[in-house]
């Protein structure tokens, strides 16, 4: 992994990436010019691709379209793309369609939401072994044990049904240098944030001296409570019990000491320290980023996926170093060695039926390979976060906002959430109401106990 080694100038970054970016844009946007000859002959094969990654931002959608176009040009295959939203896979659409026989050949998703669809998925071990070039395989190798770990509760956990192509470490910190300076803080000394004591101290300084009423935010809304910075804080106290479920998926970890301490600190940021807005029980990281852009927040946790929005709305401060990313930090005294959960954007191939099943599955993997090409990996990373190929990490560092350095540094020792078939229920639906009650003043231990009981009851059914 790339070490987090301080700021770089815009010039350094531009020098390193201009050539690569040009290659990425050229190959992605004008495949007909670059690839005059087909590499793999899949003429006559039609595959259905359900695309979710394209909803992230306009640039990712453009990239998706150009990747598909390039694939079609190279192979002669035809791809029918259906654009879907996160809600479609979290909600009923994928499940009900799959169950009813309406299935794509290939789709992209987030790694922890596909457990519910696992019976429909085709393992990719043979493709990875035999059909992936050595360089790409080497670049992705480090992700495969993580994929297996998050599927550990399945009997066929060794099967790789989810192949990562992008990474979202949860959750880096965005900071405004101008707020630090207004509060009389030396940004180079006080950032990155070291631990939660340091975080509270810095936020209080900014609140008092820079007159930012609520300089940070913890999030209560259903999709963000257990999905952003909370889990990393729990992990910093104890790796073993930091996931939602225990090692063999038989019970909830939520009554562990690490969970109680982690959630208590999360609540304290709002209730005790008054550093998070009164909207906290219903707040989201998207809203916090908006407030950050407007100068009403100083330090917020959010996905690197927000980088596209930030570049669009505050290009200047992103390029002159006023806005910088920092790694997530542990709870003070938390010595587990990791304070990060890693979400991965993955590709899945659906088991095909009929005489051309093998050909379609192969075509699906060829499309995945297109996404894994260096130029597409880098083009994705420049607009929406981190690519999955480790060998390309050096190519995405150097931006003045340091997203590449921060993101890749956070990968060291990062954990993964389980991919239990009911992971959406456990992580969002059941947890958020209890989290919101805790944020409103209910006992953290009691709420976590009630949550754990609900999860344990669900696990028995």
């Amino acid at each position: 992994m790339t070490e987090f080694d301080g700021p770089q100038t815009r010039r350094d970054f531009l020098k390193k990436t201009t050539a690569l970016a040009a290659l990425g844009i050229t190959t992605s946007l004008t495949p007909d010019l670059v690839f005059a000859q087909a590499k793999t002959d899949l003429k006559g094969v039609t595959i259905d691709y359900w695309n979710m990654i394209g909803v992230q931002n306009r640039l990712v959608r453009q990239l998706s379209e150009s990747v598909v176009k390039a694939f079609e040009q190279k192979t002669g295959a035809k791809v029918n793309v259906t654009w879907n939203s996160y809600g479609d896979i979290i909600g009923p659409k994928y499940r009900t369609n799959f169950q009813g026989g309406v299935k794509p050949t290939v789709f992209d998703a987030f790694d922890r939401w596909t457990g519910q669809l696992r019976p429909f998925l085709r393992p990719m071990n043979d493709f990875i072994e035999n059909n992936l070039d050595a360089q790409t395989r080497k670049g992705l190798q480090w992700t495969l044990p993580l994929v297996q770990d998050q599927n550990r509760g399945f009997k066929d956990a060794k099967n790789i049904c989810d192949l990562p192509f992008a990474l979202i470490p949860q959750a880096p910190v965005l900071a405004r240098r101008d707020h630090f300076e207004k509060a009389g803080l030396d940004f180079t000394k006080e950032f990155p944030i070291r631990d939660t004591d340091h975080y509270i101290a810095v936020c209080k300084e900014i609140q008092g001296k820079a007159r930012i009423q609520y300089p940070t935010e913890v999030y209560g809304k259903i999709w963000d409570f257990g999905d952003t910075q909370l889990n990393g804080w729990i992990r910093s106290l104890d790796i073993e019990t930091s996931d939602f479920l225990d090692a063999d998926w038989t019970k909830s970890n939520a009554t562990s000491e690490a969970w109680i301490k982690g959630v208590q600190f999360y609540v304290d940021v709002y209730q005790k320290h008054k550093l998070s807005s009164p909207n906290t029980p219903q707040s989201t990281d998207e809203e916090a980023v908006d407030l950050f852009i407007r100068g009403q927040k100083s330090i917020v946790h959010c996905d690197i996926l927000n980088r596209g929005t930030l570049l669009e709305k505050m290009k200047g401060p992103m390029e002159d170093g006023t806005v910088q990313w920092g790694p997530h930090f542990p709870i003070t005294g938390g010595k587990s060695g990791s304070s990060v959960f890693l979400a991965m954007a993955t590709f899945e191939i659906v088991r095909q039926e009929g005489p051309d099943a093998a050909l379609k599955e192969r075509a699906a993997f060829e499309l995945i390979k297109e996404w894994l090409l260096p130029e597409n990996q880098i083009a994705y990373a420049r607009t929406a976060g981190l690519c999955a190929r480790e060998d390309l990490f050096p190519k995405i560092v150097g931006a003045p906002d340091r997203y590449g350095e921060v993101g890749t540094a956070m990968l060291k020792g990062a954990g993964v959430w389980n991919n239990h078939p009911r992971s959406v229920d456990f992580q969002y639906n059941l947890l958020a109401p209890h989290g919101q009650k805790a944020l409103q003043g209910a006992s953290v231990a009691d709420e976590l106990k009630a949550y754990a009981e609900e999860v344990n009851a669900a696990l028995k059914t």
Partner: protein
Amino acid sequence: MKRSEERWLIILFLAPTTLFMLLLLWAPFLQGMWMSLHRWPFMGEPVWLGLRNYTDFLGAAYFWDAIEATLIYSLSTLFQLAVALVAALALRQPFVRFKALWRGIMIISYAMPPVVVGAIWLFLLDPGLGMITHYLMAFGIIEQPIYWFAENTWAKWMITLVASWTFWPFMFLIILSALQAIPQSRYELAEIYGANLWQRFVVVTLPAIRNAILVVVILRLAFNLAKIEQPFTLTGGGPGYETSVLSILMYRFAFMSGDFGMAFTVGMFLVVMTAALILPFAWLFQRQVGRA
């Protein structure tokens, strides 16, 4: 035509509707009842539980939160009626110009998808970025922003008010058409007898539109209680379960927990509650029709 032939003709005309009702309404309803007596996972075999889902739901910590939220949410029907009635009466006045334009403007909220309306209101009411908070503070009406969706009581009332704003045009259109059917001569006669504005409303207008009002109240009560997408967009059912109206709970059990047995159990409560709220109005309507 012979009487027996008439009877067969009636049966023939009723058959498609009856078949439609049986296949698309009663069969799924009975299937839902049956499922509510089971643990019915999305994938896998159902397991008979008897009344266990019902006792679990009645004993759940969030049961009363959900009932209270649903009752408050049902009040949006009354708000819709009040706004629709005033708007329709105003538009009936002869001095109002550009009536077609006003009618068009008034149905905009109903023409938009409820989720979009919800998202617009979410933005308008945002305590940091929203216009409403901004102007309330600018005019000195409030000193601090109100966190509408983060405070339990506000959250319940805000989803109710947003639903009222979105769906009132449906009532408006039906009441307006009933108003337009009242002959002008009745008002003129009432004026000759010296009736003032209020008396004309009570004696002429109200009796003429009573049936329309009862029908729209019945329809909107049923429609409102089944709404999921808009309140879910606004609050996600929270904070806690404070805005988890029964329809949201049903959705969460079915599609987030994959527990269709429990979802249909909640659905049965929703059916009973909807029927209890609708029945008085249905009885009044029936009585009105009987009198006519």
